[in-house]
């Protein structure tokens, strides 16, 4: 779960003295929205985003460069990366975890973080896309399977019973998510099972007395939306 495992290591960067059209072209070429700005010794000094560029350019230039007045063009072509970059951006270290970065995204609203070592040297970049990829993996939905939702009492030993019951059916798990449920003292357990043959498992759980939630009632209707109280975790 460390950032060093999920980040992009081959980072496209830009020099602080580069013109902003050079930065703009780089982003277009590599289909990226963030360019770390580094010194010759690979030390990070800032970051420039496609948004920084868009707000620095008058809208008519963005729209139709050729049709613009020479004076306007000259003014913006003199603009350098260092003039519009964010200095001292929020960074993370390679030993941060995916969870750290996820919480940091919510807190800072930043879409990508340069990853730097203790000497301030750029090691990589980690973006919201990388986090999403990691969570597709955690959910297990890259593999064929079926999701169930079981309502359980919040007391010790419930998960073991469920896992044992499913394992007895020779079904393997892609993931299990546990989420808070509207009712106090209840949990919604979401096993993602790597099988098409789901009805024996359903019948068994119902026979054991568990409530299987109607799929149309899953997620947002039942689970608290307040992110502070959202207890989604992988068990």
């Amino acid at each position, binding site marked *: 779960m460390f950032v060093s495992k999920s980040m992009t290591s081959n980072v496209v960067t830009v020099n602080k003295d580069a013109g902003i059209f050079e930065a703009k072209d780089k982003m277009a070429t590599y289909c990226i929205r963030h360019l770390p700005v580094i010194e010759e010794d690979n030390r990070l000094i800032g970051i420039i985003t496609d948004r920084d560029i868009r707000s620095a350019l008058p809208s008519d230039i963005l729209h139709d460069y050729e049709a613009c007045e020479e004076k306007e063009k000259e003014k913006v072509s003199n603009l350098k990366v260092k003039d519009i970059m964010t200095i001292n951006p929020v960074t993370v270290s390679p030993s941060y975890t995916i969870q750290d970065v996820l919480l940091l995204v919510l807190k800072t609203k930043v879409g990508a973080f340069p990853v730097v070592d203790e000497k301030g040297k750029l090691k990589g970049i980690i973006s919201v896309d990388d986090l999403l990829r990691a969570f597709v993996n955690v959910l297990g939905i890259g593999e*064929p399977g079926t999701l169930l939702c079981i309502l359980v009492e919040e007391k010790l030993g419930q998960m073991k019973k469920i896992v044992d019951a499913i394992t007895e059916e020779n079904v*393997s798990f892609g993931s299990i998510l546990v989420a808070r449920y509207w009712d106090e003292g209840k949990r919604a357990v979401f096993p993602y099972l790597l099988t*098409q043959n789901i009805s024996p498992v359903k019948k068994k759980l119902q026979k054991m007395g568990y409530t299987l939630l109607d799929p149309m009632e899953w997620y947002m209707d039942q689970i608290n939306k307040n992110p502070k109280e959202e207890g989604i975790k992988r068990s």
Partner: protein
Amino acid sequence: MKKTGFLYDEAYMLHDTGPYHPETAERLISIYNGIKEAGLLPKLTLLKGKQADMKWIETVHDLSYIRRFEELCLSGKKMLDYPDNQMCMYTYETALLAVGGILNAVNLVMKGDLDNVFCAVRPPGHHAEKNKAMGFCYFNNVAIAAKYIQQACGIKKVMIVDFDVHHGNGTQHIFEQDPTVFYYSIHQHPSFAYPGTGREFEYGTGEGYGFTKNSLALPGWGDEDYKKLIENDLLPAFERFEPEVVITSTGFDAHIDDDMSDIKISTEGFSWIMKKIFDMAEKYAKGRLISVLEGGYSLARLPELARNHVEILLNIKG
């Protein structure tokens, strides 16, 4: 009345999935009995299974996969790729007989000896990927049939309509770059059903963009919702694509009494769906319609579903 073929072979029961599996030989017995007890057998041309020529299987599956399947099966392994795919010694042979039987049936339709055909085969096929078995499926029967129609019968445009309640991931992936095979699937939303593919935003890739269409049904949906989806999504696809032959991945597991899904299609709902497809095949494809069995696990309902299905193909259903 149409000249309708009915492919059925007791050899299709040899594929034994073990004691706790829903994809059983009894499914075929239910289907056969439903058709027989309705007095339909004399109206049908009865077809048998046939060993498939390996070259047609290779139009879809990697040789390495075919060999792996054969070796594991013959060496007595009980499983291929996933625990869903339970095998016995005869699984490989049964799968070959299914494909060969279908290709023979296709041939008769293309020659004009038959108008259409219902292929009641096991194992099913639409989850099988080119190099992987999945979801009770080993060889992708409909995909191989489509390739055969194109390469052996000189047909360009084939439409596959998959109304099994699960998405036919294998079929979609095999043809997603191919603009000559349109893949339409109506299934339970992939966030709530196996295998988790067939999202609304999957339209095909590269040259095949626009030749894949997925219609999604939410848990609890029934006949009226399916009618709307088919009218809004499938009929325009027929109109635009104008297929020369139509293949259906015929799955009955969206039935209200089938516990493999949360979709609630009635017996009459299935007749409505098949009649629409039949009409489209009449309109665009000279009536050439190849129906190939996929899922459907309610032994109580399969007899009536199969009877209605065949009556529609025969064009004798009131």
